[in-house]
């Protein structure tokens, strides 16, 4: 197990390094000179030069990349002498737009993204897995057909369309809910709940539909397996059969998918956050891309990749804990 973990972690580090390198070179070679855009319109060549010097843009790209990576772990200094600015580790640099520390921007916005993701995840797991289970158990009934038809529609509706429809009816037309804003829970719990209700619903609906379909298919598959036939032959009651024998094997694939979806969303639910104007990681990504703010784009990409990669590792570990069949084969 220790060797397996070590191998996995090495692979993870290599993967993150590759993503880092690739992102860095793509963005810093594709886009225009950041020094010019920072300097603004009334700019002298000397000023541009000094900015380039401070940011280290005059050095070869590989050296710049090295500075970036070492800054992540050990911090770095911008400029030299008395004017030098110390950027403590983990140093993601400073936004070209606002001069804010990128690390502070990220830590400030992560709570919003986490709130959106966790709330939506609770909703979609309850609705999706619940509907899927019911559909499988009551297979062929009107309940099954209705929930699967709804799920099919839920998969097909783009989340921004749903967001706009909800916003039109709930906020503009009937004014049941306030316009979403990132209110903190401690400031006003009720307003907090109201604000996040729409983002949660919008995000959860698509996933709930997918999970309902996935759960239903898996449970039906499991119910036709031999070990369940045996259990049934031994005269076990149906609720007990479902709970003790059918649930675990049919929910392990759901756990896998859930881990990856959840990790993916922590890196920013870009469209949902943007449509509702919630200041999370996703909106930060969208804004930084629109303004070509390279340090922020870089940081957001790395953060999202970090979540995705670690989500994958955690899923694999959970999987072997949940499913004994996997455990025996793992090295």
């Amino acid at each position, binding site marked *: 197990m220790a060797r397996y973990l070590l191998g996995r972690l090495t692979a993870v580090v290599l993967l993150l390094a590759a993503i880092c390198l690739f992102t860095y070179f793509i963005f810093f070679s594709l886009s225009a000179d950041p020094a010019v855009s920072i300097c603004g319109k009334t700019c002298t060549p000397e000023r541009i030069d000094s900015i380039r010097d401070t940011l280290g843009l005059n050095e070869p790209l590989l050296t710049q990349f090295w500075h970036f990576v070492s800054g992540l772990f050990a911090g770095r200094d911008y400029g030299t002498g008395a004017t030098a600015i110390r950027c403590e580790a983990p140093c993601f640099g400073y936004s070209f737009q606002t001069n804010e520390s990128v690390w502070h921007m990220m830590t400030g916005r992560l709570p919003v993204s986490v709130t959106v993701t966790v709330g939506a995840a609770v909703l979609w797991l309850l609705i999706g897995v619940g509907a899927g289970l019911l559909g499988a158990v009551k297979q062929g009934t009107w309940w099954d057909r209705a929930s699967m038809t709804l799920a099919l529609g839920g998969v097909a509706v783009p989340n921004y369309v749903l967001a*706009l429809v909800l916003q039109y009816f709930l906020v503009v037309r009937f004014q049941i809910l306030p316009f979403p804003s990132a209110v903190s829970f401690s400031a006003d719990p009720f307003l907090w709940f109201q604000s996040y209700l729409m983002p949660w619903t919008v995000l959860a609906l698509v996933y709930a539909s997918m999970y309902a379909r996935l759960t239903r298919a898996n449970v039906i598959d499991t119910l036709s397996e031999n070990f369940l036939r045996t259990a049934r032959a031994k005269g076990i009651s149906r609720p007990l059969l479902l709970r003790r024998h059918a649930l675990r094997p049919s929910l392990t694939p759901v756990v896998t998918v859930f881990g990856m979806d959840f990790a993916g969303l922590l890196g920013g639910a870009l469209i949902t956050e943007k449509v509702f104007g919630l200041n999370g990681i996703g909106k930060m990504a*969208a804004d930084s891309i629109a303004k070509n703010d390279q340090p922020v784009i870089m940081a957001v990409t790395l953060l999202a990749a970090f979540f995705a990669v670690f989500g994958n590792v955690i899923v694999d570990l959970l999987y072997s804990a949940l499913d004994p069949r996997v455990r025996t084969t793992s090295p």
Partner: protein
Amino acid sequence: MTATTALPEPGTAAPPAPPPPAGGSLTRALLRDRTAVISTGFLLLLCLLALCAPLVSQLTGNGPYTFDSAALDSHLGGVPHGALGGISAEHPLGVEPQNGRDILARVLYGARVSLTIALSSTVLTGCLGVVLGMTAGYFKGWVDQVVSRLMDFLMSFPALIFMIAILSSVPSGNRSVLLVAVISLFGWPYFARVIRAQTMTLAGREFVEAAHASGARSAAVLFREILPNLRSSVIVMVTLAVPGYIGTEAGLSFLGVGVSPPTPSWGQMISTSVSWYAVDPMFFVIPGALLFSTVLSLTVLGDRLRAVTDAQGAR
């Protein structure tokens, strides 16, 4: 799931070479399904209208780029005259607020853009995914290692952020080609993963061994023996990929990095309609409903196809 599903027979070996589901029986099974027929009908109608978009705009006399200020109420800040977003004999689906472009023409020209991008991405993704997945699953060893690591790499990328970033940092050029390239770059691993796994099981079957024994080269085995057996899963994946890519294209255009204006696209129209939906909801409803029904029809079709091929596979 259906009455035709036979009981699973554990232990008995599968038949040496199951005949791939014939095209004819697939079509027949789908024709019996009312929902599938309605979906197909809608999609065919949409394709036909999209193909005939120039003809339609000639009939109504409105091009997708012609401004019609007469249809707008300048006292109300450019909201269309009349009810329901200015629906009239002249403009069957109304006009866009502020510039008075005909929505019918723009929606149909937008369909051409969306469908072309989605279909090309699917073809490119499918080819890359099938070829790379088959190669990895068949040759195993270092080839598999390289392809699998590349897949891990691409799948752990925050694809949406990256797509937007690439699209917005490349200033000009052919937007549609770029969109197809970017979508396919991040899309093929999802195809390849399934194909690779299926190829691995197929590669161990007797008919592949038989082909080897009779001296067939690897390429021949891959494309003549293995590929035909992958057909049904490829068909299903393709049908489910198209709506996904229509959604992706619309999403990217919605975020403002897709097809560049004035070229119409559904996502872009929806994005423009955001600032108008309180006063002119129809401007949002038409492209939104069209996008939804197209994606829904394709999803339903893919779903039914999968059910049919699953049932045939189990038989």
